[in-house]
């Protein structure tokens, strides 16, 4: 995999260094005694004081704060060690962070100074096979005060932050969009440094302090492994937080930050009314400390060479087969699909793309067409078609004989004379079985079809920020989040209707008519499927086609699901000036 760690390289393409214990330990040793950096003034409120944090199922920590930067800490009555620390205050909430010198561990504590309730995060490197990935264990607890009873409540894992979204700007100048469409994952878009408008997903924790304050974490698993932890004040739209981890150049980030935010909106939740539970994904069986279920798509994606792809495609091409087998991309995603139509049968027409080929079609019946390119020989192909709106036909077929195993997923508006094609190919530089896509705009030329002149379908921002649920089949429901002009994130619901695991990939969005949008997503570094859907926002039904290559061959499968509009985040302003 190319290892260009420049900011525009998508995170899933960066070959992050597998750091060793020695490398991690050496980097931590440089900062453990000094404490975390911070662009804002740190608080000296604890200087000269001692506190004891008692946790329910974890350690008891005795702190003596020698100054505003140095502390001594004893774990479970053990010998005290000296470390640098940082303290940030936000109203009545404190965030304390420090490492344990000589180890790859540290702690972050969030304390509600009114109630004395505390949540302790134990943080460490080396808890996962890729040691740069930060692990965390969360302990509920309190600050023990002599003569004062122990508070009965604890900060609680909750789904009450689910559906919210914020723009954040840290005191470092770093800007991001952070979506919380799941109770177990989050989606983040780095507006600073990246420039590629991609969003990414990470396992997250959400703990409710009270109605105003929530604790949020994410660990950028499968990417840099960096932890971000902050307390957010929903009403004041402020945050105090910690960032710990190694960036794509292996430099250590260890700093506290303050941030100011802007509210992006609230999308719907789908749990039963009254269900506010957090921790919605059960831990794995016999989970070790800090272990949780994490979606790691590269562990299960078959990686094929170009020769393996050519062989698999030559041996097995399955176009709209009823079932194409395990791992075959979009198979099984059309139980709730719309039925195919015969609208193209017996028609002849040409699709002329502006920056692509002109393809002549002769359609024999509801499942067979012939195509030719540039006046060449006719090739017969199996296809299926769906009419999402009167006069608008989605159809797809493979182009046998093309060196990159092209598949065309086409929306042709016969009333307007316009066509848009998502052209899937297998020619990517990363994994040979990973689909690539390009968007072709063009016209339909045929008897009775109006000539549109220079008019074309256009890329659109009308889907940007929207979240739509898609129920493909009983028990199989996802939610799409169109988080940037070129990102589709998908969130999988748990049995209780909570947002669970999430992932994302590149996408494109084309407006076909009012209320009708043609979109694709690429499962880059994640099964390699190209999913294309024509979304009808009036019927709330989509019709789509999946294009996928795996060990079982090349397949083209129907996609179809019942939709629900979960809401829209107000993010268009963050992508201004880059329309189309």
């Amino acid at each position: 995999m190319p290892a260009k760690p420049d900011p525009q390289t998508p995170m899933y393409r960066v070959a992050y260094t597998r750091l060793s214990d020695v490398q991690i330990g050496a980097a931590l040793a440089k900062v453990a005694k000094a404490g975390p950096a911070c662009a804002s003034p740190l608080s000296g409120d604890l200087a000269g004081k001692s506190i004891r944090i008692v946790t329910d199922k974890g350690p008891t920590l005795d702190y003596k704060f020698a100054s505003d930067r140095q502390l001594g800490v004893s774990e479970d009555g053990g010998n005290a060690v000296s470390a640098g620390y940082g303290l940030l205050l936000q109203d009545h909430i404190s965030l304390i962070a420090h490492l344990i010198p000589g180890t790859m561990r540290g702690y972050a504590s969030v304390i509600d100074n009114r109630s004395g309730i505390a949540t302790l995060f134990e943080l460490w490197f080396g808890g996962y096979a890729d040691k740069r990935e930060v692990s965390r264990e969360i302990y509920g607890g309190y600050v023990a005060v002599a003569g004062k009873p122990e508070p009965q409540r604890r900060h609680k894992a909750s789904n009450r932050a689910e559906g919210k979204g914020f723009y954040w700007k840290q005191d470092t100048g770093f800007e991001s969009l952070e979506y919380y469409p799941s109770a177990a994952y989050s989606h983040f878009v780095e507006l600073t440094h990246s420039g590629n408008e991609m969003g990414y997903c990470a396992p997250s924790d959400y703990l409710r302090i009270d109605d105003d304050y929530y604790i949020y974490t994410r660990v950028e698993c499968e990417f840099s492994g960096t932890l971000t932890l902050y307390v957010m004040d929903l009403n004041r739209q402020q945050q105090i937080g910690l960032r710990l981890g190694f960036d794509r150049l292996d430099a250590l980030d260890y700093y506290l930050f303050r941030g100011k935010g802007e509210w992006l909106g609230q999308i719907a939740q789908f749990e039963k009314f009254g269900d506010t539970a957090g921790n919605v994904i059960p831990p794995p069986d016999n989970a070790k400390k800090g272990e949780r279920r994490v979606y790691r798509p590269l562990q299960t994606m078959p990686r094929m060479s170009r020769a393996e792809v050519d062989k698999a495609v030559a041996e097995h091409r399955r176009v709209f087969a009823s079932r194409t087998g395990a791992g075959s991309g979009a198979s099984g995603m059309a139980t709730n699909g719309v039925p195919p139509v015969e609208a193209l049968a017996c028609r002849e027409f040409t699709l002329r793309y502006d920056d692509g080929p002109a393809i002549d079609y002769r359609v024999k019946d509801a499942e067979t067409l012939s195509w030719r390119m540039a006046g060449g020989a006719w090739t017969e192909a199996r296809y299926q078609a769906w009419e999402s709106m009167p006069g608008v036909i989605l159809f797809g077929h493979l182009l046998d004989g093309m060196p990159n195993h092209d598949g065309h997923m086409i929306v042709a508006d016969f009333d307007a004379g316009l066509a848009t094609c998502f052209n899937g190919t297998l020619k990517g530089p990363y994994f040979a079985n990973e689909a690539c896509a390009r968007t072709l705009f063009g016209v339909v030329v045929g008897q009775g079809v109006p000539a549109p002149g220079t008019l074309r379908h256009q890329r659109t921002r009308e889907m940007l920020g929207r979240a739509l649920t898609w129920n493909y089949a009983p028990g199989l429901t996802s939610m799409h989040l169109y988080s940037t002009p070129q990102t589709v994130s998908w969130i999988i619901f748990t049995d209780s209707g909570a947002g669970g695991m999430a992932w994302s990939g590149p996408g494109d969005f084309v407006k076909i008519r009012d209320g009708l949008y043609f979109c694709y997503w690429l499962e880059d570094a994640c099964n390699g499927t190209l999913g294309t859907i024509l979304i009808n926002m009036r019927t709330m039904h989509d019709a789509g086609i999946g294009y996928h290559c795996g060990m079982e061959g090349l397949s083209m499968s129907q996609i179809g699901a019942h939709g629900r509009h979960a809401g829209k985040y107000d993010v268009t302003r963050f992508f201004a000036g880059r329309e189309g």
Partner: protein
Amino acid sequence: MSGMENDGIATRRSFLKSGAILAAPLGLAVPGAALAADDRAMRLARLEDEAAIRALHRDWLVRVNGRSVTADLCVSARAAACLGDEICGIIQDEDGVVEITANGERASGYYPCRIETESRMAAENTFAQMALAQGGGVTRTSEPRLLSVEYAKIADRWVIATVEAGTA
């Protein structure tokens, strides 16, 4: 044609046609003086058979709902597995009907119930793989069905020969 076969297993069709009528004699109170002694013995035997079959059915239900059906309740291991792995629960609110053949060697039971099924989705697309990875991916359904059970009496003990979950 009578709803009950002479010496065969009563069919589900026969139950649907006249099950309520056929079931009634087992529960009717008939003056004892009107019955001959052997009739009384036969009737007692049939009541005992019905009680044994219903006890067997209750035992079987407990095991189905505990997902631990064992062959000792059935004529064979194949019979024990005839309902399919996807069925994870049977909720029966009505007693149903038990019909015993004239020779007392076979019987049929018909039980209106709700059958709950559970099936694990195939990992054939990314979304399904993610659902499975997060500990989900199991589809559950619950629908009204008519449970048709055939029984055989072997060595003076009733066992289950076949079980079918048909449309209610």
